[in-house]
């Protein structure tokens, strides 16, 4: 709801903030796509938007661990046409581990998606697990890294809507079982580097069973850990493996990763969610060295000092204290854990005190993320679930297929702004009520209407697209932050509006095995002005930008703001 005289008011305030006015972007609005099903805060529009139903027949599992860990999804504007496209990492059918499993690419055009993976050369046939998007050669288009069970692949965007496999050329060959990856400019040289998460050294000869002796998927404890990899960008997109030389030496069993300045010292750190072992926080010391400070800082285990089965990671300033908080999803029987930042860069497990924990303990969580679904100015939380161990069958004796005991509902949790989260499972629509074995979860404004939509990756199915239909008059601002031609991953935003400040980070890599819309989606509540936005770039420089109108998308370009 825009108020009359709005623009004048904004200009006055921006003038008071002494900033350079940001560049508005005419966002390409998607055509209205009607949802399917009963409605709710999120509406599944998949089929009507051209994405096939996610309930295709999928063979029985063979209790081979990689077949239950994959399923990453990504949202990014691959063809630079102003709207988000979808990529899905695809696993081969159970029992056919060597069969080609072409990843799927759904190109959006005005709200309709068309599968174009083969046509644009991005249908990587590997055993898909995770996806990372980033512009490694600074040419203004998104390149794509696929983390696979087996050889990973790196595809360069040729700028004409097509891609080519440049894995060897870019020097990122990794044949391990990798689950997630993320781009971040850790050395602040203006080029995106790559962090790849290794899981385990899988041994197919190991057979496992559940507590009752019924065959089931093995857990990570059955396998040796794998080392993560850090590749430094030489400046032309080619990479050199610097893992051990920067001190990343301890192998673990990683599933999720975030690259961001977690310790507030201006340097990019990497937080890795490990399965059944302590998480790692690779804190950058001096631009050339990392140490794992997770235990010191309180983010390696839960508050009881117990390592958990960590899968996905959410990151954001949950309590508006200008420090990033972390959240990890876990296996059923463990709570997901919220690590709230505290003074001295410490974190404490505040899961129970904010109303989380009990609500998610019955589920096995994977993809997750903080986002302001109702644009009220505080971060809510979405989590997708799906067991890795057979769950109890229904007492009513549903016939069920192989996968039914692994299916679970997802979760949407609302932050009430008073430090508590509330379960919206019943009102969240099919996103939270349908039972699936979900893994990937990507966040982004798919229809460019100012709110954040969701894409879910399920095992054995096509991605699901859930449009945000939350009835809200709250104001918003979508901010694209660019360094050169690419999204300035890692840049930090301080937004001043109506005597309030909020902190945001430009990030694509979070959740589980997924890549997200890097634009900052800022909920403003009833406030209809943004005084200014201070951007702290990865190199430490700070610029201030003014915003002359809310409820729109703006671009902030490095070098175009008022230097602070």
């Amino acid at each position, binding site marked *: 709801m825009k108020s009359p005289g709005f623009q004048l008011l904004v200009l006055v305030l921006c003038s008071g903030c002494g900033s350079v006015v940001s560049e508005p972007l005419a966002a390409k609005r998607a055509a209205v796509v009607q949802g399917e099903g009963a409605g709710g805060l999120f509406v599944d529009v998949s089929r009507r938007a051209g994405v096939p139903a996610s309930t295709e027949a999928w063979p029985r599992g063979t209790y081979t661990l990689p077949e239950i860990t994959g399923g990453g999804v990504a949202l990014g504007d691959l063809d630079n046409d102003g709207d988000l496209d979808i990529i899905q990492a695809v696993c081969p059918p159970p029992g056919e581990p060597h069969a080609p499993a072409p990843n799927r690419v759904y190109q959006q055009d005005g709200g309709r998606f068309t599968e174009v993976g083969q046509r644009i050369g991005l249908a990587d046939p590997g055993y898909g697990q995770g996806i990372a998007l980033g512009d490694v050669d600074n040419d203004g288009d998104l390149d794509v890294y696929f983390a696979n069970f087996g050889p990973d692949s790196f595809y360069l965007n040729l700028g004409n809507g097509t891609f080519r496999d440049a894995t060897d050329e870019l020097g990122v060959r990794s044949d391990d079982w990798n689950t997630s990856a993320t781009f971040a400019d850790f050395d602040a040289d203006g080029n995106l580097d790559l962090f790849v998460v290794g899981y385990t050294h899988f041994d197919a000869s190991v057979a496992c069973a559940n507590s009752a002796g019924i065959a089931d998927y093995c857990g990570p404890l059955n396998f040796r850990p794998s080392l993560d990899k850090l590749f430094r960008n030489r400046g032309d997109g080619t990479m050199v493996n610097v893992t051990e030389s920067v001190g990343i030496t301890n192998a673990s069993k990683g599933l999720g990763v975030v690259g961001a300045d977690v310790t507030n010292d201006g340097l990019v750190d990497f937080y890795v969610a490990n399965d059944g072992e302590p998480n790692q926080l690779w804190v950058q010391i001096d631009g050339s060295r990392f140490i794992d400070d997770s235990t010191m800082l309180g983010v390696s*285990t839960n508050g009881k000092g117990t390592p958990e089965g960590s899968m996905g990671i959410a990151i954001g300033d949950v309590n508006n204290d200008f420090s990033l908080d972390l959240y990890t999803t876990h296996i059923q029987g463990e709570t997901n854990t919220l690590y709230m930042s505290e003074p*001295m860069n410490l974190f404490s497990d505040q899961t129970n005190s904010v109303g989380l924990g009990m609500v998610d303990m019955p589920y096995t969580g994977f993809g997750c993320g903080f986002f302001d679904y109702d644009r009220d100015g505080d971060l809510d939380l979405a989590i997708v679930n799906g067991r890795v161990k057979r769950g109890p069958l229904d007492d009513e004796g549903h016939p069920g297929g192989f996968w039914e005991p692994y299916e679970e509902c997802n979760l949407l949790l609302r932050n009430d702004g008073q430090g508590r989260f509330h379960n919206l499972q019943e009102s969240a629509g099919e996103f939270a009520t349908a039972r699936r074995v979900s893994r990937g979860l990507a966040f982004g404004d798919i229809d460019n209407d100012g709110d954040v939509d969701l894409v879910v990756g399920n095992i054995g199915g096509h991605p699901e697209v859930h449009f945000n239909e939350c009835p809200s008059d709250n104001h918003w601002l979508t901010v694209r932050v660019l360094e050169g031609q690419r999204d300035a991953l890692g840049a930090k935003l301080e937004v001043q509006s109506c005597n309030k400040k909020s902190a945001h980070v430009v990030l694509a890599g979070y959740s589980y095995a997924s890549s997200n819309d890097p634009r900052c989606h800022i909920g403003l509540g009833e406030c209809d002005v943004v005084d200014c936005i201070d951007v702290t770039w990865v190199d430490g420089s700070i610029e201030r930008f003014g915003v002359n109108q809310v409820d729109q998308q703006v671009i902030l370009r490095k070098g175009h703001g008022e230097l602070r």
Partner: protein
Amino acid sequence: MATRSKRETLEASDEHGPRKVILVFTELKLSLTLLLLLASIPGCGPARSAIPYPNDVEQIESLRVKEAVQVAHHSVANNLRSSEAWGQLGRVYAIHGWERQAVVCFRQARELAPAEFCWHYLLGRVLANSDPAAAVEAYSKAIEVDSDSVAAKFYKAESLNQMNNIDEARLLLKSIIAADPNTQLANLRLGELELQVGHIEAARRLLNRALQLNSDCSEAHMGLARIHKICGQDEEARKHAALARLPSNPQPLHDPVWGEVQLNGQTTHWYAKRATQYLKNGDFERAIAEFRVAVEDAPHVASYWMNFGAALLQANRFAEARASLERAAVLVRDFSSLSDQQQRELPPEKRAGLFANLGVVLNHLGETRSAADRFRESLSHDQDCYAAHLGLARSSISAGQLSEAQKSLVRCQELRPNEDITELLEKVSSVYVERTHDAAQLMDFLRSEATRSE
């Protein structure tokens, strides 16, 4: 199939829709019929159709698990008013992961016998992961029955903490420590909670106490790392942080009621786990009985054979120990073909221990030459294996090879300077003692030889 002929699976309907109901025993006797009729009258007790039965029991390959379920299920069906029967079925369900069904059984058991501590307590345990509030209620009733139960108080505190009722959790933990200051888990958990509420000094004291009680407690190091960091003592914090990443082994609570549940575990895993515990506790005959099942189930697992052999050796059953240890040795010698997990379970020191034990057994069987070979094989895995050096010394003495015995005994002394080798020699080297009449004299000789050779 015989079992199946005695059971029927019927489809029944109730207000919640079709329900798979297991009815047991086609040969119903009059007395049972009357009992069931009485039991199914509202207010007269549980209806037979309400006996839970997991849908996936038929998928179980292990006959033992199936049988345990069926026996316990039949027992309930035979005596619907027996709290013990319901509780036993609950135990079987709980230990095999059928928690929802276990909840139903323990609820029924406690309704039938509200004065029994164990049903309230076990209900709390199986509810803890799904419904902490209900678990708290169950633990509270358990504590009403037995106000001294440390386990019930501790787990009630755990559930309260999950519900963010930290103050009440702290009070309970304090009451445990007041009754027994040596309860390590209570010290640990209270220390963590004190840290959470900002009582730094209290937290420091409790966590240090937890470490005094058991130094293998990563969780206590984790808390202390945080405390030192908060206090600006980064170096100390870093030391504790490093220790916090080591495997943890906190002292378990004394919990015989849950221990009884574990006795019902019928999978190979449970047999091996119980056997290992019996072996550690010196209860060798029970260890042997449990390991026997484990090795029959999983003959490819080297560690089962190895520990089975160790238990047999301890029980002086040398011939059987030899067979078991040799089986393990065959598997271990083909180490690269073992799974990753097995390889990790058998680090060099454990492999060395296997061959040392085999050497000891062969010595007992009078095969001293073969024994010496096994001791050498042991040392090829771990040069610091004390038992192998000692065994080799013994074999060498028996063979009259004093020079080799001397080397081995010197190494024993280096590895364990406080070990009284003279006394050990008296026990194991009767042949030599007969020859020299004085083991101490032998040691003096060996030491002087060792000094000379250095």
